[in-house]
């Protein structure tokens, strides 16, 4: 129980630290941001009155640049805690709405990529270990090393060129841009679900094919080590079926050390989404992050920053809790951690 309290405390602390950091960075931003925003709005809509625009923007900003430090800090956290993320100048939208429209899509691509990545890498790594030294093992080791050294955005562009451009079967099934096919509305319909999956496939695949190699090779190494353990030999002599030994003995024990990689890959994938969502014109969090940076939309940046942190913290938290179920040596005490 103690352990859960400690973990929850750590998660909350991380959230608070990141939110504060976002606050400090914003306060430190050089130049008069409000004036810049007003200029932007006026440029787009020349007929508006600059003074009204200015007062609107100041009202929407959660951080008052003229207020004393502690007052601004308290006001900012007050807004956050009441569930208000603010207003995006670039998107001209309430940030709560914008995040609700984008975060699920990015998480969806990431989930697809994560399951694909782990499914492929773990199975492949284990098979390579069983066939250690065979042609299959050697060629996959080589292939894994080559694909790992390709940057994911290069893979994304290659996928577009070779799957997206040639007219044919692939193009029709795996579109290279947008989140959904034309005319399909979100809802619990087959068209929506299959459309969402098909549109997310190529962005996810760009990540999977450039990341599976490293993970498969770690799995291979771990499996080879576990295959040499006494308990595997004893299990074989006890006459257990090979399938059970592969899954319950080798697989289970070889996967445990890879939990760290799972956590790292979540953070890395969020970073990758900034570029991948540009390439595939996929309007998720990464897509808007790029816009925010380009047009210095600080409220948008902060909102995305917070959402990413929340996602990582939650993922870590879940991984941590489930690790205890995978490895009984962790559950009984807190002498070990997943990462």
């Amino acid at each position, binding site marked *: 129980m103690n352990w859960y309290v400690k973990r929850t405390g750590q998660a909350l602390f991380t959230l608070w630290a990141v939110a504060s950091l976002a606050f400090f960075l914003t306060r430190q931003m050089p130049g008069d941001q409000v004036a810049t925003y007003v200029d932007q709005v006026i440029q787009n809509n020349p007929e508006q009155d600059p003074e009204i625009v200015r007062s609107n923007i100041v009202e929407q900003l959660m951080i008052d640049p003229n207020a004393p430090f502690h007052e601004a800090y308290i006001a900012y956290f007050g807004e956050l805690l009441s569930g208000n993320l603010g207003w995006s100048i670039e998107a001209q939208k309430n940030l709560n709405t914008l995040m609700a429209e984008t975060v699920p899509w990015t998480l969806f691509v990431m989930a697809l990529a994560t399951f694909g990545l782990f499914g492929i890498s773990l199975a492949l790594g284990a098979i390579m270990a069983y066939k250690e030294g065979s042609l299959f093992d050697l060629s996959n080791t080589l292939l894994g090393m080559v694909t790992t050294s390709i940057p994911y955005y290069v893979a994304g562009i290659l996928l577009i060129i070779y799957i997206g451009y040639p007219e044919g079967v692939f193009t029709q099934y795996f579109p290279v841009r947008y989140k959904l096919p034309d005319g399909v509305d979100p809802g619990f319909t087959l068209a929506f679900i299959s459309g969402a999956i098909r549109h997310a496939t190529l962005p996810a695949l760009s990540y999977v094919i450039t990341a599976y190699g490293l993970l498969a090779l770690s799995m291979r190494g771990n499996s080879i080590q576990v295959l040499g*353990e*006494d*308990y595997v*030999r*004893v*299990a074989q*002599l*006890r*006459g*257990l*079926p090979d399938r*059970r030994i592969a899954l*319950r*003995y080798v697989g*289970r*024990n070889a996967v*445990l050390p890879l939990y760290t990689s799972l956590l790292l890959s979540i953070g890395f994938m969020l970073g990758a989404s900034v570029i991948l969502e540009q390439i595939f014109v996929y309007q998720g969090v990464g897509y808007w992050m790029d816009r925010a940076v380009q047009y210095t939309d600080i409220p948008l940046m902060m909102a995305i920053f917070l959402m990413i942190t929340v996602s990582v913290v939650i993922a870590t938290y879940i991984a941590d809790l489930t690790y205890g179920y*995978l*490895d*009984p*040596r962790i559950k*009984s005490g807190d002498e070990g951690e997943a990462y």
Partner: protein
Amino acid sequence: MSTHNTTNESGEMYSASETIIELRNTEVVFDMSRGVSRVLDNVDLDIRRGEILGVVGESGSGKSMLASAMLDAVVDPGILSGQITYYPDDGDPVNVLGLSDEELRRLRWEDISMVFQGAMSSFNPTMSVKGHFVETLEAHEYDREEGMERAHELLSDLYLDPERVLESYPHELSGGMRQRALIALSVVLEPDLLVMDEPTAALDLLMQRSILSLLEGLKEKYDLTMVFITHDLPLVAELANRMAVMYAFELVEKGSTDEILQNAAHPYTRALLNSTPNLDAPLSEMTSIEGSAPDPVNVPEGCSYHPRCPLADEQCVAEAPDFHDVSSSHQVECFHWEDAAEAIPFNIEQPSSPEEGEAR
């Protein structure tokens, strides 16, 4: 049972019903880059139904290879050859090395079972002890309920709390508990022969003692034949009816425990008895065996013990000795066995029987 019996490995007055497993010309070789490594060399051994046979020898002498050979479980890429015959209680003799994969899978654990050296790591760390019992019963299509009842009984026979141990994960048990749980797991399918490779190596003296007495009880209750492998000669002397001594991948002497302790006929066995730590003996009287254990790729010509043997002469260097009968129940592989007692006197009185050995 074994002492008045006059069977011997060379085959006179030989009766199959009293032998449970018979090894002939058993060899294990590894093809290594340095040359052929013969890590079990021409071993002949009969194990009798209901006995406890102790196998002793220094580290690297091939004891674990001998144990694995009995289950045809030598690790890859070792090659096992020779003739190994298992005589079931009822039914025809089984040629162990000629079995199909499925027959071998059934023979192991159901008829011949083994406790491994390094028992501490014989359990899957991510599975409860109970899981190990259940999967074993299922893999051999035994009745699960009946089998688990037997597991409970075995664990309590070994002075463990069955409920607690079964619910535990391996890391939650102490070394001694894990060792006893492993012994229970090894006999849960009711085998006839249990081969134990250094089952007490990682335990403290007190735990070793208590496991020995538990094993004796287990043997009586479940009608087991046991092979107990160890480098600890005094330990096995307390338990075993008969002993076999290994040196350089061969058996060099075998006989009843009494005869080996009183009247060891091989110079190596005598040196081993003199070198074993003995609480009664003053430190100054303890000697270690000079020289080092031979390399399996390059075993000395002739008698493999000759570089270390005080009795060695030209004959020993030129040819390998055969077994000589010291008595009908005691054989030794040495040309000069009759002179061994005089040349290598015991530095202390050996206890006259295993029971008196308790004091040590």
